[in-house]
């Protein structure tokens, strides 16, 4: 099982690098799906099969498809790729990469030099326990998630609505 974890982790890292370096948005999103699927394998190995299913369904299934539909609605053509090629130059990439790599090195140093952690107990936490935990101690979080999703729906509808243009003989106005 350990080899599975390392292979999936390597695939996740490589596909994420392909996401952040590709110029074409659709190609980046397809690589993002690969990254999410490999992270789902990592979740499965770590003993969270319910979360692995949720990752495939919500992240790879819903969110990425939503972004792809928006790109199709915006009708972006080849000039976007050319523009992206202009924006993403080597000079811009270097300094953020170096700074982030320094932070990552510090994080790895801290994690490795902690007092050695005991091995995980190796039990699978199934969806029954997660459900009991969600509707037991975390029930206020579930209710707040419901409010958040409701406000997300209302906000997306309000922001995404196209303003209807009323053409009058004398005056032109935008009806909101």
């Amino acid at each position, binding site marked *: 099982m350990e080899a599975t974890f390392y292979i999936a982790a390597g695939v996740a890292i490589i596909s994420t690098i392909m996401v952040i370096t590709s110029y074409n948005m659709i190609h980046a999103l397809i690589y993002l799906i690969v990254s999410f699927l490999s992270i789902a394998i990592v*979740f499965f190995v770590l003993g969270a099969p319910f979360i692995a299913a949720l990752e495939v369904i919500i992240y790879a299934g819903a*969110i990425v498809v939503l972004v792809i539909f928006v790109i199709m609605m915006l009708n972006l053509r080849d000039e976007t790729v050319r523009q992206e090629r202009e924006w993403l130059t080597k000079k811009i990439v270097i300094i953020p990469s170096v700074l982030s790599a320094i932070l990552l090195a510090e994080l790895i140093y801290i994690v490795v030099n902690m007092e050695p952690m005991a091995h995980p107990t190796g*039990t699978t936490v199934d969806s029954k326990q997660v459900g009991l935990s969600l509707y037991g101690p975390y029930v206020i979080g579930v209710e707040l998630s419901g409010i958040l999703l409701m406000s997300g729906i209302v906000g997306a509808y309000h922001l995404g609505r196209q303003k209807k243009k009323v053409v009058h003989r004398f005056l032109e106005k935008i009806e909101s």
Partner: protein
Amino acid sequence: MNEVSTEAGLILAGILFMLGLISVLIRRNIIFMLISVEIMLNAAGLAFIVAGARWAQPDGQAMFIFIVTMAAAEVSVGLALILQIYHQIKTLDGDAATKMKG
């Protein structure tokens, strides 16, 4: 069943978070910046799952479900905003959106 060390999982989460952070720093296209935020949220959720697997408790998975909920709400509102910005200023340049006039 699982012999994966907690350190390896946390380092994987850190690497993925760093990649998302680099991407949000170097991109100017707002759709790519939204995608990078998704990568970073996913890495944070991975850290929660690793910690939950270490103690074999369901709390980490409950937190991941909350993170997924927040990511879904955020991406829907963000994409609606991107649609509006693109209709207003006809470009996806994040630097061009400087006027908050409806």
